[in-house]
């Protein structure tokens, strides 16, 4: 089973600050790399995703930076808000038999934004 290494495990940021979460992957399929956000008691929800042939994607306060040569990508949350407090998961697409892809998830980063 391929690995996806996510760091840090937990993160505390002051309101208005920048939250940065990193992810490292192994071999992968050509497919989008997503970040998911999960609130307590809820299922994960897609937050933002990036194509592997693009180095950066920005949506509002959320930016993904992608470094294909290093096999790393990161999530930046600008102007972090208390409502951003959640657990964030990166995922790497992986091809398996039959030509199908699946997602391998990282272990998650618990973000707490203090007012």
């Amino acid at each position, binding site marked *: 089973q391929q690995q996806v290494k996510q760091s840090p495990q937990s993160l505390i940021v002051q309101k208005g600050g920048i939250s940065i979460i990193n992810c490292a992957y192994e071999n992968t399929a050509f*497919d989008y790399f997503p970040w998911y956000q999960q609130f307590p008691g809820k299922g994960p929800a897609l937050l933002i995703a990036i194509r592997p042939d693009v180095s950066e994607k920005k949506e509002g306060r959320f930016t993904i930076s992608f470094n294909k040569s290093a096999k790393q990508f990161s999530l930046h949350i600008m102007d972090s808000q208390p409502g951003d407090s959640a657990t964030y998961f990166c*995922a790497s697409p992986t091809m398996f038999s039959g*030509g199908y892809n*699946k*997602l391998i*998830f990282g*272990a998650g980063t618990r973000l707490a934004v203090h007012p």
Partner: protein
Amino acid sequence: EAGVAQSPRYKIIEKRQSVAFWCNPISGHATLYWYQQILGQGPKLLIQFQNNGVVDDSQLPKDRFSAERLKGVDSTLKIQPAKLEDSAVYLCASRSPGRDTTYEQYFGPGTRLTVT
């Protein structure tokens, strides 16, 4: 558009008992996934269906876990007999057809299973 529905939301059973979870995906979503999420970890794929056929069950403990998706819509995941280490949240997810949408999965709220 209704989301992915799962039931029950919570289940407490004793070890060696059996349990079943139900999932109703978003209408029109041909691909359905069952994930296991142990506390403090990311979701781990157990089984993936394409319509009513299994395309990946490599991580499913087949000696105790089984899953089916009749008529390519609803799905059930069963554990028999349960072990203490099966305590986790079981998530169902679905996605729309198309091979380039693997990243865009829609998750249900999950079923929290506690095995005592």
